[in-house]
């Protein structure tokens, strides 16, 4: 399927554009969602947190909902003619609909549970009482977070970010619903593949872009596996 070598090595300008856009959208999506995922995981790892089960459910919702539904919800919330969308454009100059930032927002939202789960697991795997030990040694709450909890959770944070990045590269439904399929603006790799398949004679392009996606996904999943293995080694020690 991967066609001939000459075809594969030469990406057209439009294809390169789709690839770079995908990388940009995913990087912004992961970077934007990470602080949220981290804050949620830290808050919900406290046993006494009120409404923990409900919040946990809401955080996992993007995993269970069809991405099209997420895209549709974003559209009716942040569309340029909707109150919140119009307000954001008027007062902050931020337009999500039909822009690459909207694609990043949708991807970030959909991959948030992946980051949250990875961080949460790494916090749970930490030997209990290390923060208490640090407290008896004179460390305050922020000191403990910065020097004990976060460094120990780092492999989980990295693993979560990498797997969320890989998943984000493949996001299709929410993006096409929310920000449409605009070349150079919102046409990421999956959307470019979809477009190529729709056109007569676009099979070669679709195959090239698919191979590229497979390569990217493999690379990302392998990175995540390496980060996770490091995490497991540290907690078993």
């Amino acid at each position, binding site marked *: 399927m991967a066609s001939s070598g000459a075809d594969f090595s030469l990406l057209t300008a439009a294809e390169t554009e789709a690839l770079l856009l995908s990388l940009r959208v995913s990087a912004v999506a992961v970077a934007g969602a990470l602080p949220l995922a981290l804050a949620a995981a830290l808050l919900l790892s406290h046993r006494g947190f009120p409404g923990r089960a409900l919040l946990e459910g809401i955080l996992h919702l993007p995993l269970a909902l069809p991405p099209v539904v997420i895209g549709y919800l974003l559209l009716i919330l942040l569309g340029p003619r909707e109150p919140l969308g119009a307000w954001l454009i008027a007062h902050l100059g931020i337009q999500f609909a039909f822009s690459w930032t909207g694609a990043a927002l949708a991807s970030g939202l959909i991959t948030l549970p992946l980051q949250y789960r990875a961080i949460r697991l790494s916090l749970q795997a930490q*030997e209990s*009482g*290390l923060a*208490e*030990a*640090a*407290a*008896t*040694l*004179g*460390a*305050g709450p922020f*000191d403990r977070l910065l020097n*004990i909890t976060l*460094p*120990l959770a780092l492999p989980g944070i990295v693993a979560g970010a990498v797997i969320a990045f890989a998943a984000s590269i493949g996001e299709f439904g929410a993006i096409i619903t929310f920000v449409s399929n605009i070349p150079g603006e919102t046409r990421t790799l999956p959307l470019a593949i979809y477009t190529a398949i729709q056109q007569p004679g676009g099979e070669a392009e679709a195959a090239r872009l698919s191979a590229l996606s497979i390569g990217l996904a493999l690379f990302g999943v392998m990175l995540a596996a390496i980060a996770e293995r490091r995490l497991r080694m*540290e907690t078993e*020690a």
Partner: protein
Amino acid sequence: MSLEVSLRHRLGTFFLDAAFSVERRGITALFGASGAGKTTIINAIAGLLHPKTGRIVLDGEVVTDTASGVFVPARRRRTGYVFQNARLFSHLSVEKNLLFGWRRAARRLPKQDCEEILDLLGLAPLLARRPERLSGGEKGRVALGRALLASPRLLLLDEPLAALDAPRKAEILPYLERLRDRARIPMIYVTHATDEVSRLADDLIVIESGRVAAQGSVFDLLSDPQFGALVPSPGAVFPARIEKHREDGLTVLRFDGGALLVPRLHRPAGTRLRVRLRADEVMLARKAPEAISANNVLESEVITIPAGSDPHADIRLLCGQLKFVSRITRASIERLGLAPGQRVFAIIKSVTIDPQLGA
């Protein structure tokens, strides 16, 4: 240094209601069965537990007082804590673990004192290692050093030996003894092991289902048959001093009220030691025994013979100032016609000697 503790706290169905005070340095053992509330007490002292009602005064500073709403956070109490499973920071080297509290101390321990602690605990060869590359005993020593370098005014130890097998225990016990004798800070030592109490503790607080059942010096309490039920192998623990080494290979140990002959100890005359005498190693005779192999016969007075239906009884004896215990059968008591106030001859089969540098 002084510590006053008075606590009432409920944990599930368990109720803790304990009050005691500690006035001196050395090791005070909080002794009792698992689940008696020992760890809850030291967690409250460290500020890791907020008691329902209670008051804790450390060196004149009120650190917990529920009546007036005072609760000094753990990080400002300067109470060192050695946890049962060491709780070393796995992402930091041994050296960084050790310096964690030192760096955060308001007044940092001088370099010379730090080196003394490293030396005392044999930590210098471990500094570059990661915690996962340490044995159980080494982890315990690093945890001790880490707590001490933060220059605490009180050191709390929660069963530091309980998770270790016998050889690891034997490896770390001498370090604890040296610490007791050289460190200038008092220690509260939580344990349910009698051998640790008799070997390490100066004072003993017996905790029974959340309450203080007894408090006193180890030398007094361990020879009190009343605690036979609490202490699995009662006996006596007492301080002694090497008087001289005899030419026949024996060493004379002088204690308050008498002397013991033991096989040659390789320590200079004048060295102070702690002697442990188990109740089942002491036989009794009404008349001075003749032609026996035992080297040590202490002429003593019977103080009490506890009543009961056990086949054995722990008889409390006094020789000079030394209180000790002999465990013999009730049949023997009857045959010898023993009664309080009588003179008897206690035949000592063997004793255990532990180093006691200070005290």
